[in-house]
């Protein structure tokens, strides 16, 4: 049995029983899962958690699930001390949370694992999502594991090659003739018409909770403490808020000391509605039209933008954007210092980290964690110009001639 008690509106506080809904009937604001933390605290200790499986499911008691989990081996990804990158950036206590190393190569496996588990509990026999890459792959993979049908909707402008990572799991893959906005609208309508578990619509409150495990893991891997600074990407803003919630809950449950982590939002300049709002001192996030190579974080109207903004402000953190060129430079730097090939969103994180360190916002001795949430190979075409091999004939002379040029 889980400690999840109800769903609660994040704006007006109205409560609802645990069910597949995502909006408050009254104010149409998002709902979130609330827990009986008192009871949860009694059953939890560092020792008990540390004995759990080496996956996100070691934190099962802190997640809103009742039945057997749909697990494809997600989580407990490496937290790497990044000394080389730290030297480059002037940070002596820098860590990379490498969440590329999940089964479908992105952090999405965490929220999707919880969402598909709940979908099965609620009695759905199909799950659905709209995605251009990472989410599609994760949903299709989890549906395969759960023996459920998966419907994946993709704007027709997305190249076929990008969909291999989802298609391999054999979902019902539908490309929609229209813009991203058309797909958004279609999915909102479909979610009302069909009895599906729509991952980021009616299952969103549960989907969200899976990302908390990133916060839990980092705290545990740092020896049961929260970092001083976090730099994480924001698309819908959900991940960003849930890393914070994960740290906050750990402290509330007495597993770590009170949290004083400064949370920094990283966005691509071509899609930075949250950064814009932060810098303008605005309360609300106004939508933008995304234009960036960092497709996995190109969301113009972020569902949780308001809350991500609030976390950045309340934690004494900030928000910063970098250009596509800076993101590419960030990808190279991370690969060439730490051996981690991140997707463009990871390049954005490193680009932002570099700026924050250079400007002294993040200080040398602060314990800093940068979150790399997706792997590079799925979108490797953006780095194609980095392939510039030396051409040699199959003879020793030719080789030494080229080597001579090198030397």
């Amino acid at each position, binding site marked *: 049995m889980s400690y999840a008690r109800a769903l609660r509106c994040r*704006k007006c506080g109205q409560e609802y029983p645990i069910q597949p809904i*995502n*909006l408050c009937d*009254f*104010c*149409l*604001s*998002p709902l979130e899962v609330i827990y009986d933390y008192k009871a949860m605290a009694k059953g939890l200790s560092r020792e008990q958690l540390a004995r759990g499986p080496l996956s996100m499911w070691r934190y099962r008691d802190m997640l809103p699930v009742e039945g057997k989990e749909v697990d494809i081996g997600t989580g407990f990804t490496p937290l790497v001390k990044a000394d080389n990158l730290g030297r480059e950036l002037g940070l002596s206590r820098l860590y990379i949370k490498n969440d590329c190393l999940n089964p479908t190569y992105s952090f*999405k496996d965490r929220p999707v694992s919880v969402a598909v588990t709940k979908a099965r509990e609620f009695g759905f026999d199909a799950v659905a*999502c*709209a*995605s*251009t*890459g*990472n*989410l599609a792959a994760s949903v299709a993979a989890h549906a395969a594991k759960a023996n459920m049908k998966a419907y994946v*909707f993709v*704007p027709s402008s997305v190249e076929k090659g990008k969909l291999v990572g989802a298609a391999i799991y054999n979902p019902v893959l539908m490309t929609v003739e229209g813009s*991203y*906005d058309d*797909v*958004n*609208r279609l*999915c*909102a*309508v479909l979610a*009302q018409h069909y009895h599906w578990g729509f991952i*980021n*619509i009616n299952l*969103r409150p549960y989907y969200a909770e899976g990302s908390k495990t990133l916060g839990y893991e980092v705290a545990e891997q740092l020896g049961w403490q929260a970092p001083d600074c976090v730099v994480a990407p924001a*698309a*819908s803003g959900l991940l960003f808020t849930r890393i914070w919630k994960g740290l906050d809950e750990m402290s509330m449950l007495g597993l770590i000391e009170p949290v004083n982590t400064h949370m920094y939002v990283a966005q691509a300049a071509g899609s930075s509605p949250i950064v814009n709002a932060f810098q303008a001192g605005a*309360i*609300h996030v*106004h*939508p933008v039209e995304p234009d960036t190579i960092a*497709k*996995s*974080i*190109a*969301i*113009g*109207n*972020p*569902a*949780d*933008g308001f809350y991500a903004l609030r976390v950045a402000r309340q934690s004494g953190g900030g928000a910063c954007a970098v250009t596509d060129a800076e993101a590419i430079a960030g990808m190279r730097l991370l690969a060439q210092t730490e051996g981690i090939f991140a997707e463009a*969103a990871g390049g954005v994180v490193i680009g932002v980290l570099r700026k924050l360190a250079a400007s002294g916002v993040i200080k040398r001795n602060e314990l800093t964690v940068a979150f790399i949430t*997706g792997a590079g190979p799925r979108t490797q075409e953006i780095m194609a110009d980095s392939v510039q091999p030396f051409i040699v004939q199959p003879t020793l002379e030719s080789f030494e001639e080229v080597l001579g040029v090198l030397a």
Partner: protein
Amino acid sequence: MTKRQVMFTFPQELIKEPIIYNLSHQFKVVTNIRRADVSENKGWVVLELEGEDGEIEQGITWVTSKGVRVDPVTGDVVEG
């Protein structure tokens, strides 16, 4: 009859126009405002539209043609 929850975002030049009033008069759509924030230079309104699918679609097309951005209230559904 269906219900559709949407967010309208108004640019500055449309703040003074009674778009929502006109929407419910030109189309058979009942508008029900739940949340809003309108200032002198920008504004958004979260509302529920109720009517036949076709009327709602035509209404949204008209609102969009006036220069208002219309999004699902859930925010963007398409993720990376």
